[in-house]
């Protein structure tokens, strides 16, 4: 195992710590009573987790594709199953994204969650531990445990604190993802029976027959495609987003959707390189369909949350597109796109939550003409919307541009088709901005805040310090990544190169070697 792992160089087991701190924090919430105390406690725990995760960035060695900060403990020797965790260039940013987004989830729920605060903090903290677990597991069973274990807290987040149709949305979310991942379990066991190990890097070393690869690829790809989600498996997403509380939407958009992309990169590509090559055209086609249909559906939405949910489908289309172009620029663009989508869409959902707290409606028409009343709010909204459709200078511009470059380099037609999606993104986001900042077609503002106890019917309070802090934090990353993506991209470099190397050598070893064209790396 040593050839894959670099021992943890820090003085503490960082990856276990960032999982255990939220779990212990969650158990302690059971002893607390007062709502404010609970919120502050939740914030403390998530901020502490964020702070102790910081060395993942500062001490990360980007010159090696090996797994870092690893821990290896015997867990279940009867099945040759160890507790083994570690991060490489593919997962490290996603772990950091998780630990950085979670404090914001607590902050944006400060006034939004009114009932069952104790359970809310409990569930949110467990969710954090499970999500980190998914990204750091280097063992298929451990991965599956976190992958499925995450369903329960997420289900409860939607089912208990959700909107009017939360029953429907939560069940749909649960069943879709559960059904998607049952074949993943079969694939995990089949790989174990074939190779005798659950250890992911060791599984990648093996070469499998073409048929076997295809089955493994399909079993994994189904669950990842549902999680992404790609068209036509996306229908759970708008329902879940609309009904989930703000924190739930943020978690879903920022982190859960990334697990699909992460899964493709971690499992499908290195384990089944031949199958990846065979499926590549289909996956690219599905990505294009997701980009275009997602954008098209977003154009017609009147509910802000639904609009952003469909835009997520389109944005995640860019991720699958980048991944399956199988070029260095494409994969890195896709990975950066995952981070950017996490920042931007998370921020947009927080924006929706903020306005929903004030007007109790998510309809665009009920939230129009806010420019005069909430200047700070609309400034933030404008920045994040611009970032969402990839305006130059913002984070998404870099990543979408990279994916497009990769697409044009390999298949100009694919690139041209995905441009349409990018244009539609500008159309639906600008339409949203226009309606929300300026006014309705009839020139009047309509707010649904009838009989608000505090203010006059047409007066909305602008952001308070907490909300400015939450959004400002994310805005910092929008511009940081937008103007200076180099540090993040360089963290990915060697892992992505290694991954593409694995795909290439795996393909040459495989039986289909004569039928497929080898991957051409596009110059970075």
């Amino acid at each position, binding site marked *: 195992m040593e050839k894959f792992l670099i021992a943890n160089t820090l003085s503490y087991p960082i990856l276990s710590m960032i999982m255990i701190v939220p779990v212990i924090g969650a158990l302690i919430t059971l002893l607390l009573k007062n709502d404010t105390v609970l919120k502050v406690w939740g914030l403390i725990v998530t901020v502490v987790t964020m702070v102790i995760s910081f060395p993942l960035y500062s001490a990360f060695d980007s010159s090696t594709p090996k797994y870092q900060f690893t821990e290896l403990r015997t867990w279940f*020797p*009867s099945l040759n199953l160890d507790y083994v965790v570690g991060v490489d260039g593919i997962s490290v940013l996603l772990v950091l994204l998780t630990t950085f987004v979670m404090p914001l989830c607590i902050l944006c729920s400060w006034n939004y969650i009114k009932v069952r605060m104790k359970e809310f903090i409990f569930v949110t903290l467990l969710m954090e531990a499970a999500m980190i677990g998914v990204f750091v597991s280097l063992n298929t069973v451990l991965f599956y445990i976190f992958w499925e274990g995450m369903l329960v807290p997420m289900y409860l987040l939607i089912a208990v604190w959700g909107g009017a149709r939360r029953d429907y949305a939560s069940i749909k979310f649960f069943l879709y993802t559960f059904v998607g991942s049952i074949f993943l379990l079969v694939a995990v066991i089949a790989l174990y029976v074939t190779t005798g190990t659950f250890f992911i890097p060791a599984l990648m070393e093996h070469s499998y027959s073409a048929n076997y690869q295809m089955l493994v690829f399909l079993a994994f790809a189904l669950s990842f495609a549902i999680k992404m989600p790609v068209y036509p498996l996306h229908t759970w997403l708008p329902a879940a987003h609309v009904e989930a509380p703000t924190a739930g939407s943020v978690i879903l958009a920022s982190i859960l959707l990334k697990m699909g992309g992460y899964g493709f990169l971690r499992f499908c590509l290195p384990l089944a390189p031949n199958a990846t090559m065979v499926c590549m055209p289909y996956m690219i086609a599905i990505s294009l369909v997701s980009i275009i249909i997602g954008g098209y559906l977003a154009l017609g939405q009147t509910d802000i949350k639904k609009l952003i949910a469909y835009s997520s489908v389109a944005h995640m289309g860019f991720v699958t597109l980048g991944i399956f172009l199988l070029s260095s620029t494409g994969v890195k663009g896709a990975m950066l796109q995952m981070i950017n989508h996490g920042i931007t869409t998370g921020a947009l959902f927080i924006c929706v939550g903020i306005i929903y707290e004030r007007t109790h409606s998510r309809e665009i028409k009920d939230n129009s003409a806010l420019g005069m009343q909430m200047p700070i709010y609309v400034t933030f909204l404008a920045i994040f919307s611009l970032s969402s459709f990839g305006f130059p200078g913002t984070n998404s511009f870099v990543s979408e541009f990279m994916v497009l470059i990769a697409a044009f380099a390999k298949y100009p037609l694919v690139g041209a088709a995905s441009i349409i999606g990018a244009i539609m993104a500008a159309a639906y986001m600008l339409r949203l901005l226009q309606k929300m900042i300026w006014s309705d077609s009839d020139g009047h503002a309509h707010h649904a805040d009838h009989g608000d106890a505090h203010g006059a019917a047409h007066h909305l309070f602008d952001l308070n310090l907490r909300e400015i802090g939450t959004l400002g934090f994310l805005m910092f990353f929008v511009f940081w990544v937008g103007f200076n993506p180099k540090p993040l991209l360089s963290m990915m470099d060697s892992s992505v190169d290694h991954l593409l190397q694995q795909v290439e050598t795996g393909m040459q070893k495989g039986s289909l070697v004569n039928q497929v064209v080898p991957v051409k790396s596009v110059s970075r």
Partner: protein
Amino acid sequence: MQITLLLPEIALSIMVLALFATSLGKFKAGTLNLTALALSAIALFAAVAGCCEHGVLFFDTYRVDTLSQIFKIITTLGLFLVISSSSGLRGIAENLKAEYYMFLTIGSFGLVSLASSVELLTILMSLEISAFSLYIIIPFRNPHHYRDHLEAAIKYFLFGTVATGLMLFGMSYLFGVTGTTYLAGMAKVLPKLLHTEPLAVVGMILLFCGFFYKLALFPLHFLAPDVYTGAANETTSFISTVPKATAIAVLVRLAHTAGAEVGQLTWVLAVFAVGSMTLGNLSALVQQDLKRLLAYSSIAHAGYVMLGVLSANELGLASVIYYIGGYLLMNLSCFYVIYQLAPAGENLTFDHLKGLYKRSPLLAFVLATGAFGMTGIPPTIGFTGKLLVFTAAIQKGFYALVILGVINAAISAFYYLKLVRASYSQADEPGESVVLSFPVKVLGVFFIAAIILTGVLPQSFIALAKEAVAGML
């Protein structure tokens, strides 16, 4: 003869005698409950203390080994949990409470000795001791649904005797072809005979049938839903868990007797397993009565367990032992919730669960843990059990069976989720909050902790189960 070999049996016999004495006098329900609870705790301790004993008794018909001792612990643990979670026996008529505890204990005694029986007639004797005491307690129910529980009792009795008849018939064939009633003697000749002698296959299947009835496995499942709904809540929680576990003990022994290659039997067992899973899960989807739902769910679980039995390798049989232990915990946790929510021992439907998370967060959480566990969501014992059973089946190359198994797991997710959804959904009217006494709360926390911890740290349990399988015969 060493006395320590029979510790759990002796403890249970003393318990039976003590309870018999209480049935002669007039005692308050609380006193009876405490007596039964204390005695069953002693029995559990005795079973744990006798855990590492090994030996053969009574002309080699009674074998004390790791396998039997594990199942004695499971049986006494089940008895203890049933008695402690149904404190007060709300569903049982006042004048029958003492007898109820007594017959429950006699049933457990039969099951405990069944786990150790390694000879056909001894198996029959033990099985009948347990069966007859259970026939008696099925109709013990407060008289407000008279017809239902009498119907249940008659069904349980009639089908029970028919199943015993089938089993005896199978035994006669097996005796005929092997010339012995000892499992150890059969194990020498049976693996070969199963490939050459159709009578041996038929005899084996008929013998299995006696236990499929206990296990409520397709095609002997059809009485389970009626019996489970007709019997009192505390009775159902017992008959849906403990006898099943012990039936598994005998099936594990018989599968081992038939040899590592179950051969011809595999196909029959595979059909039974898949039929059981599919039928159980599909029927459970439409149930409104919670006990009926759990009955169908238990039929489905019997199917998953059979996957491990028919794999018949060391991992398969060991994972079956682990799985059934986990099933006992998860199912009892659901019945624990049902019992607490039914003050008069009535049957519950989904409507009774509405808004449960407001009325009692603990009960809602216990139910969610049990339901998610039975779905197979990690990190619970239900997931680890399924993982092990499926791994054993894939090792044997039963890909199709495993794929059918996981599809069934996906179907089952829907109705288990319905339980959770009902208890976490908003009720129209808030409803009264459920008040739980301190020991009952402790029990609820125990269920949650046990279901999660045994799932996260399975190593010692699996090691023990593997040792049991290796030390058998």
